[in-house]
């Protein structure tokens, strides 16, 4: 046996261009069909609807015809936690170690067989990215035939969430090992299902540690500020909670960027100024 020395740690992340997103919902369905997400007869109660990837609709709340809307796809943010040390809000509270932080990938896992359904993680997640299986999954006669073996179907009583299609990373690594490339995986070899399906090309996925990758070029994460974007048009949701998400959003529209966090009166102006200063450095 020889020791497999893993190379430099990855930090997989996603950048979503909100100006390109059309709200078509392809990412949601790509995710559901990739990850064996079940469905129920009635899915209009969005609180119990399992959607690892959800497209939210934001509005600037202005009157006609000044109204503007923006669609915001929200996968799991795969938070690095305060200081980006892997203390994600959900990981910190799980009493069963059913969710952990992969230091080699930056991906927050969810192990369904380990989860016993206390839902602490759901309470801890500020992005509502985690979902609870209130019912056993049920498919119409015969439809189970299309389930993918890459992702375990879940049972009632466990929490599930976006995994950044980790099984695709596992498959890409299998190939890399087989071709004796060890841990070197090309950017295109590991892409999430939503990224691949997005007909608008609004989603970009890759390694935020790799300056060659598109995600890095788009947001220019600041290593001294836990990956805070240096692109002034880019932002992360609830940045000031210091959860350090790995999902970045880009928009030219100021109201959209402002909607990314809760600001008190006057705070946004200051925020903009300090961001602007950084932009100049």
């Amino acid at each position, binding site marked *: 046996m020889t020791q497999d020395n893993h190379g430099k740690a990855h930090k997989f992340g996603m950048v979503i261009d909100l100006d390109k997103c*059309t709200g078509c919902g392809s990412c949601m*369905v790509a995710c559901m069909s990739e990850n064996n997400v079940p469905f129920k007869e009635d899915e*209009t109660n969005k609180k119990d609807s399992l959607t690892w990837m959800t497209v939210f609709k934001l509005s600037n709340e*202005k009157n006609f015809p000044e109204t503007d809307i923006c669609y915001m796809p929200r996968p799991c943010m795969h938070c690095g936690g305060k200081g980006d040390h892997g203390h994600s809000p959900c990981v910190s509270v799980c009493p069963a170690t059913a969710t952990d932080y992969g230091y080699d990938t930056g991906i927050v896992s969810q192990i369904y067989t380990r989860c016993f359904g206390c839902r602490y993680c759901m309470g801890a997640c500020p992005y509502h990215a985690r979902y609870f299986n209130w019912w056993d*999954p049920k498919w119409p006669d015969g439809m189970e*035939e299309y389930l993918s*073996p890459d992702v375990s179907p879940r049972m009632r009583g466990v929490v599930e969430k976006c995994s950044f299609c980790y099984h695709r990373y596992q498959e890409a690594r299998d190939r890399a090992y087989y071709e004796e490339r060890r841990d070197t995986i090309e950017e295109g070899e590991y892409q999430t299902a939503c990224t691949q399906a997005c007909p*608008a*090309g609004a989603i970009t996925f890759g390694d935020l540690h790799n300056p060659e990758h598109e995600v890095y070029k788009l947001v220019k994460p600041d290593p001294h500020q836990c990956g805070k974007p240096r692109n002034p048009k880019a932002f992360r949701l609830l940045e000031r909670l210091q959860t350090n998400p790995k999902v970045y959003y880009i928009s030219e529209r100021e109201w959209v960027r402002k909607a990314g966090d809760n600001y008190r009166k006057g705070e946004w102006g200051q925020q903009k100024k300090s961001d602007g200063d950084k932009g100049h450095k």
Partner: protein
Amino acid sequence: MKIDRRSFLGLGLGAAAGVAASPVTWKLTDDSSIWTQNWPWTPVPHDGEVSFDDTVCTLCPGNCGISIRKIDGRAVKIEGKKGYPVNDGGVCLHGLSGLQYLYDPARVHFPMVKNGDTWKQISWDEATTLVAGKIKELRDKGMPDSIACVYGNDKGSIAGLYKRFLMAVGSQNFYTVDSMEKSWEALISRMHGLKASAAFDLANADYLLSFGAGFIEGWGSPVNNFLANSSRKERQAKLVQVEYRLSNTAANADMWVPAKPGTEADLALGICSAMISEKLHDADFVQKSGKAFDNFAKFVSEKYAPESVSRTTGIDVSTIKDIAVQFAKAKTPVAIAGRGRGDSAGSLMEFAAVHALNCLKGNFNKAGGFWTLENQDTLTWPSLEMDDVATKGYAKPPVGLTSVISTASLPKLFETINASEKSPVELMMVYNSNPCFTLHNAKAVKDAVNKIPFVVSFSSCMDDTAQLADVILPSHMFLEMSQDIHSGAGIAKRITALSKAVIAPVFDTKNPGDIIISVAKAVDGSVAASFPWENYDECLESVNGDQWSTLSEEGYIDSELTVPATPLVADFSIFEGFRGFPSIEGDEKSYPLTLVSVDTIRLASGSFASSPFAVKTVEDTVLIQKDSVIEINPETADKVGVSQGDYALVTTPLGEAKVRVNLFHGIMPGVIAMPEGLGHSFGTSSQVVTKGGAGLLSKNGATSIITATGGVSAASGTFENRYIGGKGVNVNELIGPITDPASGLDVAWGIRARISRA
């Protein structure tokens, strides 16, 4: 020695210690925890070798290339095909849900005949004989012209076979569904004298001026448009959306121009007027149009000056002039017409008004421009035999002939049937369309269909029309069958593709091509002689002739676009004697509001119903439990006295519906919007009597994760698709058709309405 309490204590302690010192406890704890993690009813999908099978999605006219991911031959996922000229890897949510249609609970498992209120299973032979018998009967009576066929579109060899069948029996009654494509074709024929379809090179145009076209709501070829739209940012191309409501297209546009509903074309003429008066148009191009152009210039400057158009549309004069300047200065601008998804036709004059902008720029048949793609039939058919009956029948005009563009129109057909005492159509065949759901005044369409003595459906799923049929000969769903695909839907490409059978049929269904061939053979005589092929596969290969080898090997042919030999000239005389655009039904006094049907990409509203996945993505501002939600401006809601989430009654001249209210600032005051694609009537059950034995065909046992069931259980044969069926209101039951005086097509897009608390 006496056995007492202590003995039992000893026994208990001994047993406990014995068990503790044995592995039982530890092992059972471990095993039971594993047991709780693997409930037998949680499916364990079988693993195996991954392979990909490419085909073309035929759910909508967009025809994207797709890759079916398979595990040991079992299809598990649909992905977009990278490099395919339409979609280059992108794929819409309906295409992604394709596998759900395979096992759709509403699928028809075998041929069935209606027996009172129940369906009875029959064999394929019985079904074919029954249909052929009826056709023979009508032909014997000398009434072949009372046979009709409704088909989704007229592209490809399967459509060709159905058309051919009608000709061979002796009927002109072949109907396709109206769409913006038809309106464009009518317009091109009128303005350019060409038999061609319209195409827009959106991926290269630098200024897109859309008059209500739901460019990213699913208009035309959806994924192709998504790609074109998102590349705008890099290309510095502008999108201007004229729409009374902040649709997704409007929200994504660089500029949203909220003209009042029904005045979009007025705005187009206003922009024309501004362009002409500022001499911003391409003088060389319009010069070829001669005097007709001068008349047009005079007409718009008198009647459609920006000032007066501003009053009609509610758009500032400066905005109109700005758009005129921007459109004129753009290198490759295109103006697009066709409301929403373009699933219904539009007024010919409205299209003409929009197209006048294209004509003013003359940006035709080049990169980034408006293309006229001449209709080329690439299929070669053997000669057709028509006996006396057929010749006589075929000489008669189709039922529901429209005066102007001289083709039969589907809405007109049903109107004629309803107006006659006895239906002029004795036998109707329906494939790939669901007129009882998609046509305006859907209730009247249902009445008409009920009046037709014998209705044959070839639908693979139970739908609103198949429900009313007398016999169903179920087709394969698209992944189970081969067919040739010919691009359209406004895409500036000419692609011929082969959609392959990538999955073995799940139920006892057939390729619709094979069905019609076997019916023709059963009709006998000259009809049978016109269908010389053994089966559809043979027909597909032979009619595709030379291109077959490329098609079967490469999967598709992306032909170069050809520029028409003679340069395009625009005939502006279409505007002579123009009296104004058709208005919507209902008087303003009793119906102070305008009800419009709106498309959302997440709900399918055409020939197929939305999949469970698609319905799951629908927002709770569109559907709440089983209630449709209407969109209304808070200001209008205040006046009516309804607030967020309230139940309300929408009343139109056609009827009323109970809905719920969603307040949305982005919709113009006075307008209420209702989503298309809801209100299917097949959710409620209807009984099936099975012969037993048929149903889910046994699958390749080893790779199957479910065991093949012998017969269809009562539950699976009831067509209860509760995921979409019975949810919401069909907006087409509230909106009636409006016949366009210029084209005869149904051009309704809304109706006047009122709303009250319910």
